[in-house]
């Protein structure tokens, strides 16, 4: 069974992102970049499926500029077999990204597609569901557990107030939540090995995908800061505030 994993290069989660002075977007020109954390869980799950003898090949794909090769190499070091970069300097909206991934899915014909539940830059959480719709296959979003048996995937999903388990026909799209697994620490030899694994580059313009979007960003700004708070001198002051505010 072939597994395709979609990943994205994003600003590292430890970086405090600020707005550009002209409000045209986030100021990320010099920010440290990393693989989107949710996508790392997706890669880890695919590699575990291979180690368990369920997956035969793990292919990672990203859509981005040439420098997105670094996150593909990271995924290869985690244990993916080969990588595909769909190269573009355009910023794609979710639907266009899903359409690109549909084209790659047609070429690769995976039985399972894994992707992070959301990217921590735009926090949209849309691409996985859109891809499943475009391919007319099932979707298991916000997944915390998956089991594959008899041509189906059983997926446990994090939902409001608890969790639910669904059974999906394969192929299917699964979007990874943080509790799906703990991604491994990459050992140096695997980092070296990753450099020798195949990485194919496809120009976005070579794919038959309409990437125009009717959703445009008008302005990006930092939210107003909260007014400075008051430090209290003791438990008694806090109790008094709770009595007044919470009326207990």
């Amino acid at each position, binding site marked *: 069974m072939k597994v395709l994993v979609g990943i994205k290069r994003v600003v590292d989660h430890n970086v405090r992102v600020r707005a550009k002075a002209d409000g045209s977007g986030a100021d990320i020109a010099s920010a440290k970049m990393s693989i989107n954390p949710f996508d790392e869980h997706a890669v880890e799950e695919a590699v575990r499926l291979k180690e368990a003898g369920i997956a035969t090949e793990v292919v990672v794909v990203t859509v981005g500029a040439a420098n997105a090769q670094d996150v593909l190499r990271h995924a290869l070091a985690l244990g993916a077999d080969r990588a595909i970069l769909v190269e573009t300097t355009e910023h794609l909206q979710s639907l266009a990204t899903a359409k690109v991934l549909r084209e790659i899915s047609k070429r690769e014909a995976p039985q399972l597609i894994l992707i992070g539940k959301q990217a921590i830059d735009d*926090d949209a959480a849309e691409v996985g569901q859109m891809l499943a*719709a475009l391919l007319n296959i*099932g979707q298991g979003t916000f997944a915390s557990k998956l089991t594959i048996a008899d041509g189906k995937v059983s997926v446990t999903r994090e*939902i409001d107030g608890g969790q639910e388990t669904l059974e999906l026909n394969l192929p299917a799209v699964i979007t990874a939540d943080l509790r799906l697994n703990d991604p491994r620490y990459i050992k140096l030899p695997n980092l070296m090995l990753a450099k020798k694994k195949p990485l194919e580059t496809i120009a976005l313009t070579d794919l038959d995908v309409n990437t125009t979007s009717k959703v445009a960003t*008008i302005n990006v700004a930092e939210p107003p800061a909260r007014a400075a*708070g008051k*430090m209290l001198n003791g438990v008694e002051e806090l109790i008094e505030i709770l009595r007044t505010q919470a009326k207990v």
Partner: protein
Amino acid sequence: MSILLIAEFDQNTLKPATRSAITAASQIGGDIDVLVVGQHVSSIAQQAAKITGVKRVLVADDAVYAKPLAENFAPLVQNLAAKYSHVIAAASSFGKNLLPRVAALLDVDMVSEVTKIIDPSTYVRPLYAGNLNSTVKTDEAIKLLTIRPTGFAAAQEGTHSATVESIATTGDKSLSRFVNEQIQTSERPELATASIIVTGGRSLGSAEKFDALISPLATKLNAAIGATRAAVDAGFAPNEWQVGQTGTVVAPDIYIAIGVSGAAQHIAGMKESRLIIAINQDPDAQIFQWSDYGLVADLFDALPKISTAL
């Protein structure tokens, strides 16, 4: 303009998040039709029909919709969408699962987690865990939005009653099947809509201490209990209690953070709270930057005193 609003409910009650989405729809303007999809949902439809601003309630009542499988719900919404300028759902796990699938079926881009309506095609949504706000404009003929409930008050019942109409179902796509669910039940208010929340962080040290310190205060205040991701990962609290970028986004009247350091992804989930109170041993904890009232104290000394005094 006309708006199709997808309702969400549990057992016999329309969810507060749906009422918030109705308020957002009212701000856009135009007729609001509420779509209720499920099995044995006539009482839900009646609840929706009484809410101010709702013109019609469309009901798809069928065994195939007993559980909200996106594969079966999305074609139903897709079929209805052409008659509307907007299709809206709450940005809950239900809405976030369903609406992107509908968007792709309609070949449109959508706008997720809307926190503010500027005009019928312009909205504000957060980026980078709420560190930035983005104003976006959509020129799609059908505008699909998920609404973050904390940004909008819950719509209430009025004196009128909207018409209720049954609509044809679109059947089972046979791509997915519901197996089971585990839903946490609690005597306490629901986290997403509680007016007071008491949240514990990792510095509580263990599941036992988390419970011993947080529960009595939450009980006294009739509050929901929240937890940071660190506390959840450490096994102190169930994942359903997680507040933050990857957990529940909350905006209660009073948010009390106990031993919470104030990681950015946590702040993203609670900074819209009206009043934020923090207690922490560490005077340099980030959480104090976001607090209206802060107290530096030993948690294990201060919390029992507070709980006893109230």
